Every structure is written in C-alpha cells, then in structure tokens.
C-alpha cells in the first residue's frame, strides 16, 4: 500500500487516484462545523487562520477525551458534506486534502479539480481502532468549542481510501457501479 505524508505536495495530491488505498502519516488538523464557520469569519475579516492551510490536510473529526497514558481518545471521521459550504474557499486558500466520510457536493468537487486537491475517506465508526494511528493530539485553537476545537494531530500510517481525486473521479460512484455490474453479470450467468 502506498505511504504518503501530510502536508501534501501539489505533486502528491495530483498523483492520487480514486479508489486507491493509502497510509497517511505526518501532521493534519481537525476542524468541524463550528471551526469552519470561524475560519470563514477570519478570512472575511482579514484575520489569520489558526494554521496556514497551504498544503495542509483537514480531518473532519472530534475525538473523545484522551485517556491517561494514551495519545488520543477514539477518533473517526464525521460526515463531510456539512463542511461543503466552507470548503471551496479553503481550497482556494491552498488546502490540499480533506479526510471525512460520505459524498461531497458538485461545488466542492469542482473546486478540488480547480485546485488539485484530494478527498480521503476514513472508515466511519472504526474509532477505537483508528486511535492507534494517532501519536499526538494538541488543541491549537478555539478550546471553547470543546469537541469542535481545532487540534493538531500527528498520524502514523492512518489507513484511508482516496474517495474523490483531483480529476473529480469518485470511489463511491465507481465502487457502487462496479458492484452492481458484477451482480448483473452474475445473474445473467445463472440464467444461461
């Protein structure tokens, strides 16, 4: 399986293809609904973002509190589509990747093509298991948001699927189509 490191270079982001499985290491930042709204406020008002988004990957996640002796609590992706309103703006600011679950809007896919960005899916609900791939977690902004604060995570080989690539190809559409075609063929063969 291909191993990549965040932040992502333009070259890496553009080389990934929908359906490909990767192991992601390096630094990513968590941001959910409330943090996205605040980031848009920052940009509108000309203030600095909590981190420079250029080349970075945002993980749509809010972990459970960290138990003693561990790096992080349970952590898995939240539904990405809720962030779609803010995403094209962040992509145009230089964001290179996102980790979440579920489909994205046409506007996000268009902005991804334009900016050469990639959208990864993590396994939704496999949060106890995926905690093993996070070696450090630190709140860097908006602690008042609690579960929704912005955190810097250090990842060690987090397993992901390239869900939508920089050309707009979708592993959801491709995967479902391939399965349904397989089922149709299977039925036809049973008939023959």
């Amino acid at each position, binding site marked *: 399986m291909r191993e990549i490191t965040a932040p992502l270079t333009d070259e890496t982001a553009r080389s990934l293809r929908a359906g490909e499985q990767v192991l992601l290491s390096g630094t990513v930042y968590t941001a959910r609904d409330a943090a996205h709204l605040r980031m848009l406020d920052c940009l509108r008002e000309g203030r600095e973002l909590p981190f420079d988004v250029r080349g970075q990957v945002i993980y749509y996640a809010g972990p*459970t509190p960290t138990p003693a002796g561990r790096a992080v609590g349970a952590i898995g992706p939240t539904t990405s589509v*809720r962030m779609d309103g803010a995403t094209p703006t962040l992509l145009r600011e230089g964001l290179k990747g996102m980790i979440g679950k579920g489909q994205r809007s046409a506007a996000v896919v268009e902005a991804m093509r334009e900016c050469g960005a990639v959208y990864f899916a993590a*396994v939704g609900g496999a949060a106890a298991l995926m905690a093993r791939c996070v070696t450090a977690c630190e709140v860097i902004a908006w602690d008042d948001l609690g579960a929704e604060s912005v955190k810097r995570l250090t990842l060690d080989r987090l397993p992901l699927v390239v869900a939508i690539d920089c050309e707009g190809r979708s592993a959801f559409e491709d995967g479902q189509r391939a399965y349904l075609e397989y089922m149709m063929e299977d039925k036809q063969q049973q008939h023959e």
Partner: protein
Amino acid sequence: MREIAHEAITEAVAGLSVEANRYLPEDLARALREARQAEEWESARALLDILIENEQVARREEMPICQDTGMAVVFADVGQEVHIDGDFEAAVNEGVRRGYVGGLLRKSIVGDPLRRVNTGDNTPALIHTRLVPGDRLRLTVAPKGFGSENMSRVAMLPPARGVEGVKDFVLETVRLAGANPCPPMVLGIGIGSDFEGVAGLAKRALIQSVDEVNPDPYYAALEKELLEEINRTGIGPQGFGGRTTCLGLHILAAPTHIASLPVAVNVGCHVTRHRTVTL
C-alpha cells in the same frame, strides 16, 4: 409502593452510558459477522473486517466504539407502583453527566440550537417516560450518533399511497443517505400515529434487537422484503459498493387518522447502541 432512590437511577444511567458506548449489543455484533460471511464483494468484506476488529478493540481496551458518543436518549418505563425519592429527570441527567465526564465520552450537546454553546457534560438527556403496570423501573440508554440521525426523514403520505408509498419512501431515504450515515445501517421505521408519534415509533423500532422478528406476520414479511430491497441498492459498507447496506430493520405500526399515512425512518449506523437495566 416500591421506593427507588434517585441515586440508584443516577448510578444506573452513568453505568449504562459508559457501557453502551464501549460494548456493541451482541445481536448487532453477530449481525456484522453474519454480513461478513454473506458478503461477496472483496472491498466490502475488508471494510466489514475492520468494523468487527474495531468493535473487539473497543471492548478490550475500554474505548468508545465510535468517537460520536451521541446524544443520550433515555427510555424509562416507570411502574405505576414505583415511588421515586427525588427529581427523576435531574437524577437521569446527573447520571449522563457522570457517565460522560468520568467515562471520557465526547460532549456533543449544545444548549441552544442557534446560539450553539456546548453544555460541557453532554446534558440534557432526551428522556422518554412511559407509565407501565408493576413496581419496576426499566431504563434504556441509547446514545445516538448524529451522522446517521441527520439522514432520518418523516413523511405524511396520503392513505392512497399505501404500502407501496411506504416502501418507496424507505428506499428513497436509504438512497439519499448513501455513504453519509456510516453504512451498513440499522433502520427504525414508524408507520401510523401522528406527526410526533411516528418519529417516536421509529426511534423505538431502532433500539430493538436486530434479530428480533416482528410478531405480526404481515409486518415481518414487509421487514424482510425491505431489507432485501435495500441490500440490492449496491451502496455497501461506507458507500464503496457491496451487498451489506443494512444490517437489520424494524417496523413499529400504530393506529392513525383516516386522512393520513405517516411514515418515519430513523437511520442508525453500524454502531446502533443501547443498553438496558431494570431496577
């Protein structure tokens, strides 16, 4: 009259909150393993293996199965011969507070839907109380994740749409949900009652054991048909294709008005949690 101390209620709710988030109901864990056996599509099998491993890791390491440890939905069947010493709802909320703070569960509740400040302790719980015969108190804590809750829908269909209308609405809800609610899903379907009642039926249907068979053969057949139909959509685990889109579904039906056919679909994920104790 049988006396139940409010402290006993608090302790029970605290324990149930933590346990429900760490231990997947055995029937659902079994359904996952059976779905893995029945799944033909390779990538779907690999994803189901991850979900099964995750459930085991959570149990072993005393970690929440999912980081969305939910809104604490509490069902209380209160025997009419029971006397509770103190404020019942305060006792439940104190239990949620202790469970979520002490058990290192995520605090996911904002005190107001528009002004959105986190309450910091996952309270208040959503409490559904029913008065029943007897002198026992049955408490169920069902932490509800909102990735799946957001995909739930209610429709007030005209009676002429009949069972076909219900089937179409359920299938449409599943297709619209797609990859978002962490499929494989569990569905609770309410049919009948009124606007608020039908959603309550769907929620109660969602926390039944997935292997429970509807006692009414008409609805048992409809459940089976819907499950097969849903598992032909091709959505598959996490929306990446496959047979396993839904692990189980239940229908709860109730009397309704001559002018309406209410239907509600409460969408749950593969971590549809609930835990019950009787005091």
